[in-house]
Structures are given as structure tokens and as C-alpha cells.
């Protein structure tokens, strides 16, 4: 079940139909982003590739002869990209859509507040899942106050973010891709299904997902592994609340817990599989290392881990590296660049995972998988 199906499900069940202005204004953003990140970005990329300095950087990258740091190499590439109007316009539109998604979706869902609130009530007949909120969880400075993706107030800054995502932003804007590492035309719902299919075994008894948000990945896991017991955790109260209601309405039994992914409180060797989906770039590398260690601890010997995050700079061409790096400063993704400068496979090997593989399953390097196994 993809995000798209999740969204369709809620719409069929009468979540909220946005007003004509709300709907069409968001749909415009989807169309603008789709065009800009395909046609205009393609012109920008070709200009970069035809530039003598650009050619030199591409050549150096292919031969692996540069000893410069990633920030230095990307600064050089960005200077070349910025020489051309197509790149500048494409980035302008990228920023326009990133801001307007919230500037439009909040008023659009606010117009329908009573309907959204009514729908977000727990169902009468539930699926047997649970929600554990824990006010002892500390939001550290690296997380607290960050307005991820330019979202006003961050994940917990507006109570109807979940409803606005399900009723509009997901299906009218994000569905068409063309932002961050997601290629134009790619459906992130289908990405999730692709990533889940990277698990090497057909069955798992217990699966854990740190940073599970509003269950978009857990709902896909439930479809792929219907007999598995699913446990998810996150720092965000509102994401977990929305995720719990979504799971119960979908009839999927999931245990959701408010936890710091470095200290899950789960027993040693208690899970058969772990998935991390688009989580690494939302945390500093030092935090990531502790999360990987924690996942190693809670996995049973022989348990599998599948990780999807934007590709490392090393796996993409210099122009795409500029595109990825841009999110750090311009879409409030403070850890995007340091995540892309890191090879998670090396860290996984250092921690003790075996059979570690790193590979792209998408054309432009996304989804990018790191997977491995805890030794028996």
C-alpha cells in the first residue's frame, strides 16, 4: 500500500475535500514543481555539462582524482550552475513551492477544521494498536525548533499538518516528485514499496521503525508482511497521534511509541528487522551513529536492516550534488549535506553489521539503499 493509496483511502472515507481554491492552488504547485524540476532543471544540467569548468569537474569526479572536501567541490559546482538562468529559475521555483505548500495548505485545511477534527477522532472499532506518548523524552537543540522543510513551527507546530498532508499536499504536490532527492515524476508512495521489497526474507516476526512519523512506511510494511508485529517510534507527538489514528482506521495493528531512537527502551535482540526511511538526513551524523548502534542492539542475531536516504555525494554527478546540497540551507534541512557526505555502509560495517551493501534503486540515485545483517 503506497502513500497514494493511503491518501485515497482517507479521501474515500471522507476525510476532507478541500475548497476549490484550496485544491486548485495546491495542484498548481504540483504542476509548477513538476515542470520546473524536469524541463527547466534539464536545461540547467545541460548548461552545466557544456560549460568547460563543469566538464572538468565531471571528469575529475568520474576519475576520482579530487582530494578536496565535499563542501569545496560543491561550492565550485554551484558557482558554475549559478552562471546559467535555468538553474536560477529552477531553484527560485523550488523555493516558491516549498514555501507555498504551507502558505496554502494551512488555510485550505483550516477552512475545513471541523471536518478534519471529526475525522481525526479515534474509530469506534479499532485495530488493537497502541500509542505511548512519553513527556520524559527530551527534544535536544539539534532537533528542537527546527522548521523542517520550511514547515512553520516544525512537525508539532500545527495540529492539522497530518490532515493537510492526507487531504491535499500528498496527492496534489508531493505525489509528482521533483523535490530534494526525489526525481520529477517519481511517486514517493511507490518508492516506499520499492524500499520495503529490499528485505531479503519473505517473513519477519517483529519489525521496528525509528522515525516512523505518520506511518507511511509502516503501512507499506503491513501490506508486505501481514503477519509481522510492527513497532514504530518518533520524537514528534503530533506525527505519532496522526499515525495512530491512521493505523487504527486502516485496520493495521501497530505499536507506536514516543522515543529517542538512540534509547528505544526495547530489549536486546528483540526484533527480526529494522527499517529506516528518509531518516538519516534529519539527524546529525553523531546522532545517526548512536541510532545505528541502538538498532544493532535491538536486532536479533541474523536480523536484517534496510535503510533508505538520499544518496551520498560520491554516488551522484556534480550537478546533482549541488541540487542535493541546496536543501540544507534553503529548505531547512540542516543535516542534509553532512548526511550526503557520509557513507552509511562504512559506519554499518564499523558497528558490526555484515553483508553490507549500498546501491541505488532509482535513476538519479534515489531511493538509495544501505542494507545489512546482524551476524549470527
Amino acid at each position, binding site marked *: 500500500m503506497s502513500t497514494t493509496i493511503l491518501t485515497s483511502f482517507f479521501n474515500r472515507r471522507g476525510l476532507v475535500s478541500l475548497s476549490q481554491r484550496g485544491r486548485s*492552488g495546491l495542484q498548481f504547485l504540483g504542476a509548477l514543481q513538476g515542470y520546473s524540476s524536469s524541463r527547466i532543471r534539464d536545461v540547467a544540467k545541460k548548461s552545466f555539462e557544456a560549460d568547460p569548468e563543469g566538464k572538468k569537474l565531471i571528469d575529475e569526479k568520474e576519475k576520482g582524482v579530487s582530494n578536496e572536501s565535499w563542501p569545496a567541490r560543491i561550492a565550485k559546482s554551484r558557482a558554475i550552475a549559478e552562471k546559467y*538562468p535555468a538553474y536560477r529559475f529552477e531553484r*527560485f*521555483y523550488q523555493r516558491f513551492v516549498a514555501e507555498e505548500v504551507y502558505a496554502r495548505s494551512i488555510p485550505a485545511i483550516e477552512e475545513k477544521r471541523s471536518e478534519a477534527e471529526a475525522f481525526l477522532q479515534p474509530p469506534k472499532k479499532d485495530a488493537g494498536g497502541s500509542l505511548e506518548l512519553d513527556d520524559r523524552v527530551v527534544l535536544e*537543540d*539539534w532537533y528542537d*525548533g527546527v522548521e523542517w522543510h520550511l514547515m512553520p513551527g516544525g512537525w508539532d507546530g500545527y495540529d492539522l499538518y497530518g490532515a493537510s498532508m492526507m487531504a491535499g499536499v500528498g496527492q496534489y504536490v508531493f505525489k509528482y516528485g521533483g523535490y530534494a532527492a526525489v526525481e520529477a515524476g517519481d511517486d514517493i508512495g511507490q518508492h516506499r514499496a520499492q524500499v520495503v521489497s529490499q528485505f531479503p526474507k519473505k517473513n519477519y516476526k517483529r519489525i521496528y521503525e525509528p522515525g516512523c512519523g505518520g506511518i507511511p512506511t509502516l503501512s507499506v510494511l503491513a501490506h508486505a508482511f501481514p503477519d509481522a508485529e510492527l513497532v514504530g517510534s518518533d520524537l514528534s507527538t503530533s506525527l505519532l497521534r496522526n499515525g495512530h489514528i491512521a493505523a487504527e482506521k486502516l485496520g493495521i495493528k501497530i505499536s507506536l511509541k514516543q522515543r529517542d531512537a538512540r534509547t528505544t527502551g526495547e530489549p536486546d535482540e528483540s526484533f527480526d528487522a529494522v527499517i529506516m526511511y528518509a531518516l538519516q538526513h534529519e539527524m*546529525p551524523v553523531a546522532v545517526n551513529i548512536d541510532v545505528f548502534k541502538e538498532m544493532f542492539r535491538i536486532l536479533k542475531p541474523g536480523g536484517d536492516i534496510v535503510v533508505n536516504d538520499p544518496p551520498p555525494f560520491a554516488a551522484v554527478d556534480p550537478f546533482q550534488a549541488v541540487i542535493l546540497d541546496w536543501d540544507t540551507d*534553503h529548505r*531547512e534541512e540542516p543535516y542534509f549535506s553532512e548526511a550526503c557526505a557520509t557513507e552509511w555502509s562504512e559506519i554499518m560495517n564499523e558497528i558490526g553489521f555484515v553483508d553490507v551493501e549500498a546501491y541505488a534503486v532509482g535513476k538519479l540515485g534515489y531511493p538509495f539503499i544501505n542494507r545489512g545483517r546482524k551476524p549470527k
Partner: protein
Amino acid sequence: MMAKPKKAIRMPYLGDEVLDNLVHMNTELLSEFWILRDRVTVLEHLLEQTGTINREELNNYVPSDALADELENERNAIVKRVIGSEWERDWSVDALIKRAKG
């Protein structure tokens, strides 16, 4: 304890802030245009469903003399307002009163 990360920046993407603002306005106008066009299409659909209009008839409609005159006047006015915005700057009271009368 790790430090707070820096906030996102908003730079002039197109060279300077004035140009960014102009393109921003232009993009908002395109968006408003789409929202209106979407509404007209929905309106046509609803009116057709209730049997009030026939969209084929609407497409093939030839305005009568009076309506043709009305449309011509509106068309000329909009061209003058938009394309002529630089050349129609007359802030005298007489000119502004005349503008109100069309």
C-alpha cells in the same frame, strides 16, 4: 550537547531582490489565473450537469452585436490596463474620474 542548527536562508535566486519579487508576483498571478480557470471549468461542468448550458454550444457560441461590443470594450480595457500600465499614468483628477467611467 549539540548546538542548534542554523536557520534556512532566503537569498535572491535570480540576481537581486527586486527581480525575485517581480518573478514572485508573476508566479502568484499565474497561480491565480489557474485557480480562476479551474473554477470556470468546474462551473461549466456543474451548469452542464444541471442542463443550464451545453459546453459544445458554449464553445461554438458567436456573440451577438451587443455582447460583441461589450466584450470588445472589456478586451480593450484590459489591454490598456496591463500593457499600457507604463504609458497610461495620468494622476490628474479628471483622468482618474474618466477611468472610473470606463
